[in-house]
């Protein structure tokens, strides 16, 4: 068999800094590379990557391949796929990992097709099989009702990882590593799709993904107006408001605050779910929370199967008293 070596991660950069998901990739990548006796490589695509490349080394990379090109300043599916394919073909890694992000969701299957590999998406655990040194990728299936462990037979063996499911290493600024510039000139004829506009819809205040306290409302809230009391509770606790897909689909709140399998992944110290039934696809986004509180009028609701603290009752009775008590307690 040809040389079956090399573990490449594709990182992401936000505002010139290494994105948290990239540090998480390096955390798991380090373990896997050590288990296989590989170097840990990271590819960064974009513009102004010097700072992020340094950070990648501090977080565990041995080599950082930097593809700087103005055409890659913003994610375009075609130019990124072309550039990443070019570099990956040169490096010919046995394993290729990315994050399950806006970019990873879109790019990973394209790369799998272009490179002849196969990818397991949205993995929550990765390991190296001791005998074969193959990648074993654990991924939630059926909305999180079960987990499947996948072994990719093709090369590269690819996986995307779910945010916050794998830990980053403590950064160490004295770690040594190489930064290697690579040519990722993109042939304009490969770019068929044009991005004409990008619209940010971030909520003000604490970012949902970073919040220590998340107060989430579901369809049980009954309407947009009722979310005001959730906002108040979030303010009292110093946290952010989330929502189930049902609440987003009904148009009560922006879809950018959806928590779950196809929304945001949060892992706060406290997650308060109000009028949320606890469908697995929702729990997928908050099961990493240290504590879960549920307020739901249905004692049989699934949410009580995953919550740590619960009250059965109508939120209209429960919330005002709860908010008032929290205010009192936090004032002392």
């Amino acid at each position: 068999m040809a040389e079956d070596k090399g573990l490449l991660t594709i990182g992401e950069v936000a505002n010139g800094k290494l994105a948290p998901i990239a540090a998480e990739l390096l955390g798991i990548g380090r373990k896997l590379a050590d288990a296989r006796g590989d170097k840990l490589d990271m590819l960064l695509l974009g513009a102004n990557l010097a700072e992020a490349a340094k950070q990648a080394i501090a977080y565990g990379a041995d080599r950082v391949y930097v593809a700087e090109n103005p055409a890659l300043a913003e994610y375009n599916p075609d130019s990124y796929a072309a550039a990443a394919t070019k570099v990956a073909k040169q490096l010919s890694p046995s394993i290729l990992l990315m994050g399950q992000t806006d970019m990873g969701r879109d790019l990973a299957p394209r790369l799998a097709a272009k490179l002849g590999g196969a990818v397991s998406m949205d993995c929550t655990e990765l390991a190296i099989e001791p005998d074969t040194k193959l990648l074993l990728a654990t991924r939630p299936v059926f909305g999180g009702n079960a987990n499947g462990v996948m072994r990719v037979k093709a090369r590269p063996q690819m996986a995307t990882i779910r945010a916050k499911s794998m830990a980053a290493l403590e950064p160490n600024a004295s770690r040594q590593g190489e930064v290697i510039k690579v040519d990722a000139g993109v042939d304009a004829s490969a770019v068929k799709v044009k991005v004409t506009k990008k619209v940010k819809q971030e909520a003000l205040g604490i970012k949902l993904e970073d919040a220590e306290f998340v107060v989430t409302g579901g369809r049980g809230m009954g309407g947009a107006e009722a979310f005001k009391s959730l906002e108040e509770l979030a303010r009292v606790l110093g946290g952010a408001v989330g929502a189930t897909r049902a609440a987003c689909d009904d148009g009560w709140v922006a879809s950018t605050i959806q928590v779950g399998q196809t929304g945001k992944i949060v892992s706060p110290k406290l997650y308060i779910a109000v009028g949320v039934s606890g469908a697995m696809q929702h729990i997928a986004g908050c099961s990493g929370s240290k504590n879960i509180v549920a307020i739901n009028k249905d004692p049989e609701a699934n949410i009580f199967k995953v919550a740590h603290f619960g009250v059965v009752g109508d939120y209209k009775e429960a919330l005002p008293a709860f908010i008032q008590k929290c205010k009192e307690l936090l004032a002392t």
Partner: protein
Amino acid sequence: MNIVVCAKQVPNPEIPMGKFKIDAQALKVIPPEGIAPVISPFDEQAIEVALRIKEKNPGSKITALTVGAGSAGDILKHALSMGADEGIFLSDPAFEGSDAFGTAYILSKAIQKLGNVDLILCGRQAADWDVGQVGTLLAEDLGIPLITIARKVEVLNGKLSVERALIDGYEVLEAPMPSLVTVSNEVGLPRLPTGMGIIMAARKKVAVWKAQDMGIDVAKVGKNAARSEMVKLYIPVREAKCEMFQADTVAEATVKMAVRLREAKVI
């Protein structure tokens, strides 16, 4: 315009946790008893998108395709009752056990046989194994442009204008036709079949295409061609230890809970 929608039948994804059963030995999910399978929700939304485009582009034709066995073709009747014009069931014993690459290849051969397709719509992911790849691989097989995770799809001056949902907003992309778009739930709720739709659908015949009808190389489909294999399937253990708070009123119960959270230094 000729629009193709690829759709898949899945076990109802919204069943209560306790009803979900697997056969860990066989690496299979046991269909929940008494709960009928459904069209994968994102695929139903893809049909909705196709219907909206057809409304703005009269004379368009919507063809629904599904790869599967047994009753999996039933969802085509659902597509027809919503307003699709034609349904084709791609079914052959050779297809069983195909992975995303195999399924995409089968769909690509069906689409090539149809010919002259302007737009292909898929769901962003099927609500069974949540693979999230068939649409992408199909576009790669056909060599056409692809936009994933759409929250809005429009045809403007012969071009596609698509809003792609992002975690903190969205972006607008433009693509020539033919292209493939994968659809996300933000496009909005799918319409319900009308009584008339159901009657019309019952009258329509669904064609069945086998491997040889599409010139499929059977070495490229089925379990043996799969590029990945599942080695284990399990239901994660969840310790259910919810501390419940009770009192004469709901308000008092939540006050007790707040005090407990403070004691436990959670707040």
